[in-house]
């Protein structure tokens, strides 16, 4: 299953990230994963939240430039080589990863890693065929 990721365009100015966080918090939305891609001039904040549609609504109301993107959240064993398993499968089957980051979720012996791949349908197919668990929602 695909997971909805929210991306927010951020200027490199002091306090801008705090404002996003505040908007999300005040709407009672919980963060499940977060990452920032930064260039010299601007940043792109990526988040997985428990209520993505609501988050989009409040962000737009606060005039943030935000966008929904589909990503895959894969449940992996929290032990050496856990990530390697997926990498080998993706590499073998030609799944091109654009970026990945880890989530804040940790249950027993497993973690969830968020993958943005070039062709999500193809990527998901490979994940399911390999018997890996892609989570549906947070």
């Amino acid at each position, binding site marked *: 299953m695909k997971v909805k*990721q929210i*991306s927010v*365009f*951020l*200027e490199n100015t002091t306090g*801008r990230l705090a404002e996003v966080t505040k908007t999300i918090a005040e709407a009672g939305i919980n963060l499940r994963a977060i990452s920032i*891609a930064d*260039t010299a*001039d*601007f940043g*792109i904040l*990526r988040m997985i939240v428990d209520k993505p549609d609501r988050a989009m609504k409040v962000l*737009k109301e606060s*005039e*943030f*430039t*935000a*966008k929904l*993107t589909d990503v895959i959240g894969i449940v992996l064993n929290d032990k050496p080589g856990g990530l390697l398993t997926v990498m080998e499968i993706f590499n073998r089957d030609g799944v091109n990863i*654009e970026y990945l980051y880890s989530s804040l979720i940790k249950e027993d012996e497993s973690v969830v890693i968020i993958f*943005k791949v070039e062709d999500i349908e193809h990527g998901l197919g490979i994940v399911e065929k390999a018997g890996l668990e892609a989570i549906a929602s947070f």
Partner: protein
Amino acid sequence: MIDLYHDREVETMDREALRALQLLRLKKTVSSALKTPFYKNRLKDVGIKSAEDLKNLTDIKKIPFTTKDDLREAYPFGLMASDRDEVVRMHASSGTTGTPTVIYQTQGDLDRWTDLTTRSLVSAGCRKEDIFQNMMTYGLFTGGIGLHYGAENLGMLVIPVSSGNTKRQFQLMKDFGTTVVHATPSYMLYLHSKMEEYGYTLSDFRLKKALVGAEPHSEEIREKIETLFGIDAYNSYGLSEMNGPSVAFECEKKAGMHLWEDSYLMEVVDENTLEEIPDGETGELVLSILIRTATPILRYRTRDLTSIIPGKCSCGRISRRISRIKGRTDDMLIINGVNVFPSQIEEVIMKMPEIGTNYRIVVKKEGILDRLIVQTEVGASIFSDDARDMNKLQKRIIDNLRASITISPTVELHEPGVLPVQEGKAIRVVDERGGNG
């Protein structure tokens, strides 16, 4: 004894003879102008059907002013007064939008211009023994080529290196013992700031003079260049509509720029009333070119603010002097010597519907050089989660701007609503440089 003048007779003639020469040449120019689609009706409308309708120099006031926008409307051939096969060269400069203004010259026109640039070089103390490194851009821009031919004509060894490539500039200066350079004032300061980095000291060079132009600068900047290099620096003024460099040039007295009145008819007018103002008062410089047949331009509003310096120069030259350019009456920006109109930038941005219509232009000093920053807004429709797409967009904006304004700006992407909402054109431009350099 070495003659201090290039053309003693013309340079030192008395005012009355000069005025007679001006009238003669003005009549020739009006004759040419009557051949052009652009001027034909303009002149007839004010009762000038032939050159003989001009009885004296003040009759020029009957002729309407010509503006940059007029020249744009005449693009590409509306101002050509010679047969096309007589024309041997063209130059163009940036217009207020993507349409440039274009100037044509016959061989005779070029020869007269070369004679004038030779005169300018001699007046600034250049001699045939000098080695002349031309650091001004060659091409459609008149800055480089303009002095090139005059320098050759004078007999100097000319190094046509053009602008940029600082490392090579130093190498040539050292290896060939350059004595005179021609550059923008900001580039001179930049050169000095890079000397140590490239491993040179002043003792590696034989530099004596710098001819600086293409951007307004203060007396303080001249003194700084002179002190840093231990040389003399001379101010130069020109614009492509009036051929290019050598409209006005400083002589060795460094007391203002002689505007060569046998070749240009000058008026200084109040920028609002357009009435002529007395010598010594600052106003807009209006020029008519008297030595070009292929593109006659009459009463051209240069938009440059200056004043006529009263009195005669101790060098003995008859042509009156103008003061340093004090500013512009329009919103043209001069970025490291290159003319940029905010409207050119706006045109590019409006042609890219994917970026918002709100934008801002910021000009800053970065060390010694000017930096042009174009700030644009990223709306939800173009925002991509992929930073590479955003960088590509940024690069595309830069490429489109460079194609229009010839220099590479920095392009910033901002969140919508961050840039102040603009009402007028002028407030879209924030010039943080302060003063003239």
